[in-house]
């Protein structure tokens, strides 16, 4: 990793220094709460912080008469740690907005704190669609993706492409079951069949071959991997080893996972992301700028989402006037963010719905064969696109309390 912790600290100092020299300028304080050392550190982590920094640089805040300070912390993927860091940032450290904000459990916990303190919060890395559903609130936006989007794209689009019988390998916790349920319903809506599923202990499973063979014995055309991180990696690695013929459907796989597995093992895997660096001229331009700061790794959607959300936040702050923006409560800030359409190199043009869902297209990708890849990080080929207005759950189905029936 080129992005060392020392580098990060130095960078923090670099942004902090001009601030102290010109203390009279208004300063927005962004807290990036992420997984710096755990299982999701390569999916979000230091590169998400770097993406946020890039947004500040691209927007050119210093020329616009205000400053931005970034603080970072590690929530260790524990909801209680995340909640207590969020409390402390809002209460004591003068943080104006929390970004990224981690996996589902942490995301819901931080959203509750944001509501409690009436402060703004934009989540990028979390998967749970409850964040804009039953647990939604006026202080929270959900930026990059959610389980509904993944389920619809991977589940629905794969059935259309002929993958009409499914078997799920489900990590035995709430997230795994929710994902299995959602994907299963899209599969059935599309005319496919769910032949079975097996729940695997989480954490604590290293060997998935027993489950993969059960999946194979079912005769399903697609094996849906309703798990994440090392579990998914082990599944893919072992499926290759056992010569499993069925197509693997990665329900939560990121570019960094593919990178760590290598194309030799990973090719043929189908997955969904809302961003890929080599998607169009704008994503390529973004990725080139990021490469200057972080040459070793390319951003996946959760990291790129941090760029997108930070840029939008700064644009609105500048439009409204930073003084007024800073003085507003969390609900008002989020309201201002919702009013302006989004547009950036990462997701292109999009908007934010009243329930807090930022919307943009989602893409179904297949991992290339080693022979198709032109070099490092050339991993995906696009299979299909779900347009912005269909990619996410319809507002009415979310039962978000902010939406009057």
């Amino acid at each position, binding site marked *: 990793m080129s992005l060392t912790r020392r580098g990060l600290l130095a960078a923090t100092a670099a942004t902090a220094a001009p601030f102290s020299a010109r203390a009279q300028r208004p300063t927005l304080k962004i807290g990036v709460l992420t997984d710096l050392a755990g299982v999701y550190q390569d999916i979000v982590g230091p590169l998400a912080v770097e993406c946020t920094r890039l947004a500040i640089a691209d927007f050119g805040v210093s020329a616009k008469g205000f400053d931005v300070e970034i603080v970072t912390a590690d929530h260790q993927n*524990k909801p209680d740690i995340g909640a207590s860091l969020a409390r402390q940032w809002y209460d004591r450290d003068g943080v104006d907005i929390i970004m990224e904000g981690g996996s589902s459990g942490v995301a819901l916990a931080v959203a509750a704190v944001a509501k409690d303190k009436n402060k703004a919060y934009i989540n990028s890395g979390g998967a749970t669609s409850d964040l804009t559903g039953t647990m939604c609130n006026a202080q929270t936006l959900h930026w990059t993706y959610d389980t509904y989007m993944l389920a619809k794209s991977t589940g629905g689009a794969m059935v259309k492409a002929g993958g009409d019988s499914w078997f799920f390998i489900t990590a035995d916790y709430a997230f795994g079951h929710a994902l299995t349920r959602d994907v299963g319903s899209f599969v059935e809506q599309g005319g496919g069949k769910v032949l079975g599923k097996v729940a695997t202990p989480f954490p604590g499973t290293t060997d998935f071959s027993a489950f993969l063979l059960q999946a194979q014995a079912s005769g399903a055309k697609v094996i849906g991997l309703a798990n994440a991180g090392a579990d998914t990696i082990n599944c893919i690695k072992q499926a290759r080893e056992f010569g499993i013929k069925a197509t693997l459907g990665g329900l939560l796989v990121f570019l960094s996972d593919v990178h760590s597995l290598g194309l030799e093992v990973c090719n043929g895997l189908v997955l969904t992301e809302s961003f890929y660096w080599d998607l169009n001229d704008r994503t390529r331009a973004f990725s080139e700028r990021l490469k200057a700061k972080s040459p070793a790794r390319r951003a996946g959607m959760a990291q790129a989402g941090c760029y997108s959300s930070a840029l939008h936040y700064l644009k609105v702050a500048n439009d409204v006037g930073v003084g007024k923006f800073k003085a507003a409560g969390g609900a008002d800030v989020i309201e201002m963010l919702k009013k302006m359409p989004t547009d950036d190199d990462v997701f292109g043009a999009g908007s934010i719905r009243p329930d807090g869902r930022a919307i943009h297209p989602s893409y179904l990708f297949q991992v290339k064969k080693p022979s198709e890849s032109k070099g490092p990080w050339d991993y995906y080929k696009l299979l299909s696109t779900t347009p912005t207005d269909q990619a996410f759950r319809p507002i009415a189905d979310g039962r978000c309390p902010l939406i009057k029936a």
Partner: protein
Amino acid sequence: MFGFTRQHGIAFLVMFAAVVIAPFFLYPVFLMKVLCFALFACAYNLLIGYVGLGSFGHAAFFGMGGYIAAYTAKKWGFNPEIAIITGAAAGAALGAVFGWLSIRRQGIYFAMITLALSQMVYFFCNQASFTGGEDGIQQVPRGNLFGLISLQSDMAMYVVVSVVFLFGFLLIHRIVHSPFGQVLKAIRENEPRATSLGYRTNDYKLIVFILSAGIAGLAGGTKSLVFGIATLTDVANAMSGEVILMTLLGGMGTIFGPVLGAIMIGSIENYLAQLGAWFAVTQGVIFVLCIMFFRRGLLGELAARLKLSL
């Protein structure tokens, strides 16, 4: 009335003063967290420091206390004091089961049984629907104390937490310095002799196990109300490791040591949160340094140097 010696009396007054003054200088939510962990560590110390039983599964009581308090407060609308007491009772009940099974064995075997049982509790909490899986029980209301006083403000909550902490601390002090506590120490030093003196040592061990588990549940229940959240973190075996670290760092078998240990670990956790993996490394280094250079813990070493009992 609590059997304080002069030294303990002074030390307790210092601690009491610190508890009263601290929220005016430090962030109260941080202090509440430290107090909950301090109480948890004291409960653990009661077992390992005074009876010599090293449990590797104490997170089960802490976490279960948290879940039950959170659940009863959120779903059944219990007042906070009742929810916390219910959490403590749940910890004690679980402790009765653990204790009944594990005290038949000693040393590493005792530790392994508690570890295995706590793994099963973790499994249960991950499976059971009432715990909310990995999201935990969220948005737990702090409620109104006795149905009257709102605990929404951090200061009000702080008062409750410090009362719970001081109550638990004094209870442990009382247990240790009672005739019952003398028997416990006799068991720690030489169990066969205690048996030959006519003490039914297993009964004593079971009772103290239940007390320790109950106080751990009390701490866990309080913590879940402070943060409005109860999660798998608190039943996971990393939490069992953390409480061992706090107790070890502060000083096993010293009455104030675990409090000091909890303050230190809590501060490290708080101030090194941005350091990511360096936090685990720091924790590991502290473990190693403790075992290599001050096995009696900070306070234990200090007490030995000054020839005090703390």
